């Protein structure tokens, strides 16, 4: 549990700009001068109005997209291409429907040439960890949305990632499932020791999960402020400080959403 405090951040976002230049359309400045670090094993939540570039940032950290300016450094190495050490989980589980759950979890392992018997062992272990030990040979469409998302976690965890990124992973789930999934995620996070970067629209989710919340401005996204959540887990929802955080985030977001609207109308 006592991790040495490493001077080297797990992810370091250094003055990152991103300008999308879609073919035949006007370029979009998604992110401008973004700067913050994620410590090893830290749980960071990204909060901001939609369209401010949160997904874009995750894609760039994953190495699926390049930066337009600045750099992203993970464990001391600049990100140039995707790596299984930086797992990414989407709003839809995106499991392959032609593979069983166990084979989905083992997909990355099989790409890396791990032998079938060992793959299966790891898949079983991972699925047990996410509470799907009896779903090995089911097909993805036989699982509920929450189970599929847990299977997607198992697929990412099977690669022993140092950073796990999640783009609104629970947005499509109902409220009850959602809060169960948050508990589940905290447990996964403690077990794996990975840093987590999670995007959400939900202020409650941010307070429930984060060590620190990075609040984005409206597009072009910049860091508006970074708020450490100084409450014990599970977060005491009756605590007055919980409500102070809540009010603060509501205000911060409302200001940015207003600004985004004003800009849209001006344009």
């Amino acid at each position, binding site marked *: 549990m006592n991790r040495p405090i490493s001077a080297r951040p797990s992810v370091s976002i250094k003055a990152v700009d991103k300008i999308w230049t879609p073919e035949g359309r006007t370029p979009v400045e998604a992110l401008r001068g973004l700067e913050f670090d994620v410590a090893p094993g830290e749980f960071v939540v990204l909060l901001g109005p939609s369209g401010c570039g949160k997904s874009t940032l995750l894609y760039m950290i*994953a*190495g*699926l997209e390049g930066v337009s300016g600045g750099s992203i450094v993970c464990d001391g190495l600049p990100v140039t291409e*995707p*790596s*299984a050490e*930086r*797992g*990414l989980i*989407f709003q*839809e589980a*995106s499991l*392959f*429907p*032609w593979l069983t759950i166990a084979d989905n979890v083992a*997909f*990355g392992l099989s*790409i*890396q040439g791990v032998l079938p018997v060992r793959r299966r062992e790891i898949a079983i272990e991972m699925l047990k960890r996410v509470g799907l030990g009896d779903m090995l040979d089911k*097909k993805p*469409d036989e699982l509920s949305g929450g189970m599929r998302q847990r299977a997607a976690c198992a*697929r990412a965890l099977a*690669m022993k990632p140092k950073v796990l990124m999640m783009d609104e992973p629970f947005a499509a789930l109902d409220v009850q499932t959602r809060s169960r999934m948050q508990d589940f995620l905290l447990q996964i996070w403690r077990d794996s020791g990975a840093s987590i970067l999670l995007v959400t629209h939900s202020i409650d989710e941010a307070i429930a999960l984060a060590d620190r919340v990075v609040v984005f401005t409206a597009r072009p996204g910049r860091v508006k402020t970074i708020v450490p959540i100084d409450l014990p887990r599970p977060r005491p929802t009756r605590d007055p400080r919980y409500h102070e955080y809540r009010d603060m985030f509501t205000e911060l977001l409302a200001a940015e959403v207003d600004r985004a609207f004003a800009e849209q109308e001006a344009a």
Partner: protein
Amino acid sequence: MTMSAQSVPSGSPLGGSLGGGKLPVRSFPSPAAKRRLTSLFWGLVSVGLFAAIWELLWYVEVANPLLLPPPHMFLQDIPGTLKFFDRSNKVGHMATGGGATALMATAGWTMFRVFTGLALGLVLGTAVGALIHYIKTFRNLALGTVLLLAPISPVAWLPVAIFVFGIGDVPAIFLVFITVFFAIVLSTGAQIASVPKNYLHVARIMGATERQTFWRVILPAILPSLFMTVRLNLLGAWMVVLVAETVGVGSGLGQITNMARATFNAKLVFFNMAIIGALGFLSDWALREFQRKTLWWVAPGEGASR
């Protein structure tokens, strides 16, 4: 006597499927089994009604039995009718043996041509479609020709098929191939382009090479809808194979049609039509079962079993 003894087994597929239909009764609460029984029931009613009207028209002497012999007539003399079928697949070979095995051989050759043509069309169509999608030079060189040839009816290819491949199985298989090939080529690119981006992202993050991504992600993602294209063209495939057999092959069910027409044998015409109908139905069922077993991840709306 023998005739009626013969006509009992000919009715037995119905009896058999009804008997088979009883099996799910044990798990009768299953709504799927119930639904299947109901549709089987109405299917039988529908065919029965059609036959009854036909029989009635014959009975009241509206339908001339020489031209439009009703079912009981063309199903009656089955051994006699089967004399016209031949066991061999030799071109121009006139009926030697007849009998049920000859019928099966004749139907078998036709089915063989249909399925071989479809399989070749699927495999080569996907390959060419993928090359067009991925290789720019190839796209520039080939796409125009594909777009030009695609709308040509496969029947129009018949003379070409015979000029190039002569008489035999190959021209028939070629025509079936043409029926699906261009449709598959053209849809492959669109299907590849519509593979969910997140599938490709997962593959990249896991470190898959482009080749691995194609074989293990893109191909399984597009196969179900390509297979649907094959299924939709099954009817067309049956059509051209009969035309080809009539003209350029000299064996198979199409050749029987041709002979029956030439010899003015209405019973044989309708018997042969019944066989063709049953086989067409069976081959659609076979493709559906194949899809269910091997491409089980097809979206339910796309004609899968569920």
